[in-house]
């Protein structure tokens, strides 16, 4: 098929959205932050598993633990959302199903993350029974 359009005309408007690099870098920065945070989280789990409810409340009431825990939750759920998003985009090709799952992924991560952060703050600020 002969096209009378010039190569420049065909290429116009089909370039990148100009935000790919920033998105790519932000994913890596999140992953780097998770290296120390998750390792700290492992020791947190070991500590919490050995103690009871009172010990857990005391542990999370420490400002450093509460802050690191909130950071761990927020960056983890952000990373989880980004990761599962790629999995969905790779395997689900029906537009409606893909859209539904992408929205579900976002809502699950947003809700679970928000609930976790609020719960941590509630206990840390002394609101626990």
């Amino acid at each position, binding site marked *: 098929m002969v096209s009378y359009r010039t190569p420049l005309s065909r290429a116009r408007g089909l370039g990148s959205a100009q935000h790919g690099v920033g998105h790519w870098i932000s994913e890596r920065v999140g992953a780097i932050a998770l*290296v120390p945070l998750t390792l700290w989280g492992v020791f947190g789990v*070991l500590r919490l598993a050995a103690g009871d*409810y009172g010990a857990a409340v005391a542990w999370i009431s420490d400002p450093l633990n509460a802050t690191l825990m909130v950071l761990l939750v927020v960056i983890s759920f952000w990373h*989880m959302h980004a990761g*599962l998003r790629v*999995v969905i985009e790779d395997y689900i090709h029906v537009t409606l199903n893909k859209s539904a799952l992408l929205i579900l992924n976002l809502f699950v991560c947003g809700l679970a993350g928000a609930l976790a952060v*609020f*719960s*941590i703050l509630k206990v840390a600020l002394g609101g626990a029974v």
Partner: protein
Amino acid sequence: MAMTEAAKVPRERPMSPHLSIWRWHITMATSILHRATGVALYVGGLIGAAWAISLAQGPETYGTFKHLLGSPLGKVVMAGLTLSFFYHLANGIRHLVWDVGKGFDIRTANATSIVVFAFAAAASVAVWAIAAMTGAL
């Protein structure tokens, strides 16, 4: 005439070999496992959120949560998550090194695959040994 006919029929395009065609190799295993452990850790993240929520609910709910995780099934899940975590951590760092542009040659990629598997196994055993010694089990 023959030329226009040929132009209408889509030309056989070279296809990427499907998963079943590839010879199984270790870098392929690490790639697939990175994704699989990531999905497993997604569930682990939700369990983590459940921990925080149960703590805010009070001692009874927290006790139920701890009882569930301490049950045999809970321990199996936690063991799987431990392996998944250390694997995903090590292979994630491997990915970050690749992102800097290093470690792409086949020998290095194969060697770092083995390092990742070894680290995941050793770190998991170490954490569960610490758990056993500190009364966390």
